[in-house]
């Protein structure tokens, strides 16, 4: 349920800003997401992960924590 919610509902919105999110796993209340594209170098990604957690709470009724894994492309990797 959480996976499809992220893939179908939230990922297209994040793609709309040049970002990219992939669902990796959910263990207990911790959801691990990989962020690519513009998200991978976003200095304020934590605000976005808070929004994701908030959306999941509002729409799915689940209290979750988001673990964000950034995957920068090589040309942004310093």
């Amino acid at each position, binding site marked *: 349920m959480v996976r499809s919610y992220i893939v179908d509902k939230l990922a297209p919105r994040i793609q709309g800003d040049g970002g990219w999110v992939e669902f990796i796993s959910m263990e207990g209340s911790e959801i691990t997401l990989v962020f*690519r594209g*513009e998200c991978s170098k976003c200095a304020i990604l934590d605000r*976005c992960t*808070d929004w994701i957690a908030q959306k999941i709470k509002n729409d799915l009724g689940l209290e979750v924590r988001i673990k964000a894994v950034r995957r920068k492309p090589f040309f942004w990797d310093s």
Partner: protein
Amino acid sequence: MAHVKVVRRSMRPEEWTLLRFSWLKRGIYADMEEITEITIRDARQISENEYEFTDGPERPLRRGDLYFTPDGTAFIRMKAHIPERMKGKNLCLQLKTAAEMIVRINGRYAGGIDPNRERIPLDFYKDCDELDIEIEAYNRSKPDDERNPESLNIRGCRQVFNGAFLCLTRDNLQSLIYDCVLLTDIAQSEYFDENLRSFLFIELSHALDLVDFDNWEGVDAAAEYIRRHIYENTDYKGSGNVALVGHSHLDIAYYWRRIHAVQKNARTILIQLRLMDRYPEFRYTHTQAYTYETLEKYYPEIFEELKQKVAEGRFEPVGAMYVEPDCNVPSAESLIRQFLYGQLFFRRAFGRTIDNAWLPDVFGNSSIMPQILKKSCVDYFVSNKMSTWNDTNRFPHNNFIWKGLDGSTVYACVPPTHFITWNMPSQIQENWEAYQDKDSGGATLSMYGYGDGGSGVTEEMMEMIRRFPHVSAMPKCEVTGGADFLHKNLGNNPNLAVWDGELYLEMHRGTFTTKSDIKKANRLLEFMFRDAEIACALRHPDGTGYPADEIRSAYKKLLLNQFHDILPGSHIHPVYEDAMADYRQIEKTLNGILGEKADSPYFNSLNFSRSVPVFYPSPEGTFERHGVRGSFAHVDAQGLAAGRVMDSDDSTSWLTVSSDGKTLRITTPLYRAELHPDGSFVSLYDEKLHRQWVREGHGFNKVHLYGDYPGMYDAWDILPNYRDVEYPFIVSSPLSLSVMDGLCAEFETTLQTELSSWKMRIRFFRDFPGIEIEHIADWHEKHRLCKVNFAPDVLTREVVCDTSAGFIRREWTKNTSWQTARFEVCHHKWFDLSETGAGLAVINEGKYGLGLEEEEVSLSLLRATIRPDIESDMGHHDFCVMIVPHEGDAVSAGINRKSLEYNIPMHRTGLSFPEPLRSVLCSSSLVLQSFKLSEDGRSFILRLCEQDGRRGQIVFPFRVKLLNMLEDSVAEGNAFPFRPFEILTFGMPLS
């Protein structure tokens, strides 16, 4: 000798001046009143000006709150009560944001706020007590910002609201700040004289000494000091003649979807209109008829104001085209329609025909352009990239004459610097210094205004312009319009140099290949439009019932998707999804218009007989092509007449196949071929021409997988070193005969990488020399470029490439840096390598990138880029190419005609062309490019294209009108000579 590195720890005088300059900005606002009655509602745009409200109901918005959501639009409402102390004064609305906002106040469009401007003057509302402020805001800033790159780190999807304020500004301090912006820019620029820079720092320091940074006393004295000591000092002489043209480049889609460009455009235009209220000298240029159309549709109030400013000559439509399309991949007919629909809009809306093409950001320009420009009433051409983005050679001209494939010429300007500048003296001086036609070209063009996502000119840029005359070291600057600049400096200028041929951009070579699906669909639909229009013209000979609006609307959608960040593939994933959805919709529309019926005869819409075997769907067919079961057959199809699929016998005796365990030997009546298990040829011996086509020991039809790491411009570029690292394809299923019948024998091999599979079906025909290769890829690579290489045993130093309106010859030798830089070029339906007497062509159905190495060419098949789209080109692909060995050269072998056959299938429409027009067209060497109802509905338009490079004459048995590409009458008669590569448009009466 001992060396001690001295580290200066104390502040330099120059740094002290710059620091105090930055302090000045703290004092801009003399009084601020926070607006506290604010609500916000989050939404997501789902189509043009249509929203879904996804993030809850309207809620209060307070300073410190987070606002905006990913891909979000926020509707913000404020109620502001103007305090007594501010009434009657020059108020501003101040709001610092990384978002882009269209602001309406008390029902009137008041202006725009975005990262480049934080306040809107409220002079218009001076006498109001209350302000009802409505803001349509979206958070899709462009991902690069030349002026403030560091600001991008905090331009995420979620922003902190910093409050909104009514403000009174210290106008004298703001003016002093602009003085300092101007002068510190010069003082820090290496483009200006060292003594001048030193002088400026000293005098600016003296001026700032007069300012009290606590109470802002002394500001007027500092300004006066600058006037007397700097502006009135004329010891430092500048030179140069620079035309300043206000402009904002607007990508219709890029890091945003095209539905979002509607707001970006409206905001940009609104900002310029409000700036015109305050700066009477301000003139602004804006391109793309499509953007005007959306403004007229969704923001009629702003559009009416814009029309007024157009009439006054201050807002200048430029560009003539429907959008700023890619100018490599679209066909000639597409480019013509870009001008036709663009110019018709400008004529309807503003009563004018635009005489310039304005394409600052496109990735090179095909040599077919000058003729199309000229015949679309466009005498001038502007495009920036070749001057500043070429990676190898410096493009030698800025103001010049551009000669195209057919010899047509237009006046061309490739400005010396970028199309986005913020009008700083250093940028203007840089432009002048880079300008290469100082002696012949008149003034140089410098565009000013923020762009890519729109935005445009700022108050600061206008204030710079007002100060330029006071700086003797500056070049002479003239604020002008785009057309005025071109007319004055290029028009009838006898001294301009001539550049003959394409304007190849030595960069962004990957855009011929990235997003394979989009290019394939574009090609397919370009020809579907051709056939749909022909079908409609034949069905509705008096024009009645011709679905002109339906076709026009669909055509405009195709043209929209030819925008130079859509068709080239340089965009985020949702843009790709939008484009593919558009293509599906267009195809559905055109299929409906074509109205094929299973029991109707085929119609050959080409004005010559067909010779290439066709594939026709049939559930009982032996073969599968593009996922459809069917059979190959010869056709009896005269030009512009009904066609018939011919029966073939089922005999398989024409083929022999043997294997030595290493290679497969195939013998047909035409060839003796030997192939590796991976489908590449060891040998292809031509039994008719008694010659070998494969250079011994070299790859021929060899699929290569290269590392493809261009860096930041991932979707755009292919680097010259791409061949340095090659990854192996493993043969998982070696080449073997899969199916055959009396006409065709199909061999299949499957290649594999860890992530992808690549199936190749090779089809030999019994009595047709073409060899078709179908590539079926399940593609999941990253940073890979897949090419198929051809190293033929042909002695030539040039590759002949189709342009869609004739061919050009490209050298594949590497003698010069110009040749070397063109290691990856654009071609259309075919390329050919010929020596005297014979040659070999490769025809494709939607590939454009062609690698040129000495004595070897490679057709670029797929890329796997990750920026801007992580998933670019991933998934299933299925495309065909056909290798066509031939006698004679490409022209005598009719390669172009074969390529048209290959790309234009016959449709079951049961139509045929009326006589005597059919006979005229079929006896001509000209290619029937288009046959349609005229845009005014009063005649039929017949467009013919000379594509073999020969001269001739076409004679009609009745009088017709010769038209330009805008369908205006040019001449009348029944016999018309034509030149090599000429495109001719005729108007003929209905019925």
